[in-house]
């Protein structure tokens, strides 16, 4: 992949074929940018009891809770 200086395109999976733009020299934000952590396996949220605080009963997304 080309080294697009000053552009987030340098690490975007779509860059080689992106239909949105050919000028990838200075892109600082893009809704189509593929988040690194979204490209492989989804990470599980690791939330300690302390962090949950008063929201303890609201762990609707079933994140694994680490003590």
């Amino acid at each position: 992949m080309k080294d697009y200086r000053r552009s987030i395109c340098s690490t975007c999976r779509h860059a080689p074929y992106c239909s949105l733009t050919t000028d990838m020299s200075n892109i600082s934000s893009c809704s189509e940018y593929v988040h690194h952590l979204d490209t492989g396996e989804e990470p599980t949220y690791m939330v300690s009891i302390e962090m949950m605080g008063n929201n303890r009963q609201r762990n609707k997304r079933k994140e694994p809770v680490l003590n």
Partner: protein
Amino acid sequence: MTTLTKTSKKTRKQGMLDNVMRQFDNAADIIGLNPNIRKILEVTNNEFVVHFPVRMDNGEVEIFTGYRVQHNNALGPYKGGLRYHPTVDIDAAKALAMWMTWKTSLAGLPYGGAKGGIQLDPSNYSLAELERITRRFTYALGDNIGPELDIPAPDVNTNPQTMAWILDTYMSTKSPSERSTNMHVVTGKPIGAGGSEGRDRATGYGVFLNIKFWAEHKKVDLKDKKFIVQGFGNVGYWAAHFLEKEGAVMTAVQDAYGSIANEDGMSVEELMEYATANKGSVLGFADAVPIDKNDFFALNCDICIPSALGNQITAKNAPKIKAYLIAEGANGPTDVEAEEILLKKGIDILPDILCNSGGVIGSYFEWLQNRNGEIWQLDEVMAKLEKKMGESFKRVLETSQRRKADMRTAAFIIAIERLEEAYVQRGIFP
């Protein structure tokens, strides 16, 4: 290992920083901004560069460089994202931090502007390494961030998990009795760790609301109005979702893979379902045909929503645009020359700083809930967002009419005047 860098007198203006400074200068000239306050707003308050060691999975130690730029806090704690990317540096962070100052000011939030991140390519590190890097960066920043000082949020290559690590690390540095009072040190957290309902759709809903307010003002019924969306990510999808519920019809979509159209309309939900199952691509959707990417903005429609990236509407394609409303879901999608062409054609532009501010308002609601020990339901969050965005829209419209200026200029005027007022009333210490 914290160093404070001095701001160079010859600040290199390039790309984003150049744009931000140009828009600031334009609005400052129009309102005749106090020259002393202009001096303050032209520079950043603080620029932190931290170098910190982290042990890698193979046992070796690597040194990382992290940045946090705090532009201005006249209106409240600094607020802005943290990104992990090789391009992160002081110049990039300065431009984005300044942009956040104007955005939070316009939105009427009690925040200033900040931005930062770590210069790295996250694909080179394991999840465990990223966790250690994040935690060590948080420790290195120390009390230069805080729930009432500087509140980071997710950005490029950082997400709710990253925020949860920052929160956990920051809280761990506090005494047990203080820990639970620091939940609002970051926003964009997972729901289970103090995140807010509705944060996922806040930006897209904000784009929709601005279109709705504009339509009410112009007495335009959104039912059966045709709209096209560039970018079918979080912003584009949710904006389309709410527009469709209002009776509007999505006739074309462009994403990184290509462009599709159906002038009779296509279902937003069915397209999202298809794209999700098709590695995120809208290409191949049965209810639409592929079109040339260069024809996208020239399509026949009423509303155009560029919600992907900057510099998409240019002098080249602006003359061909048929929509009478551009709602900027992305940052800087319309360049300067294109804007002149569009305004001359009588096309209204809902500027990015207003149109996509739903995200930071959503963050503010998360911060408020944590700060006040409250938990709001989704409908409550959405109702408050509508109220807040309605106030912003009204202020921009009124200023635009009173100053006989376009909405972008009006938005910058409001943002800068609010900061000017704070400085005039408070004075300059000592």
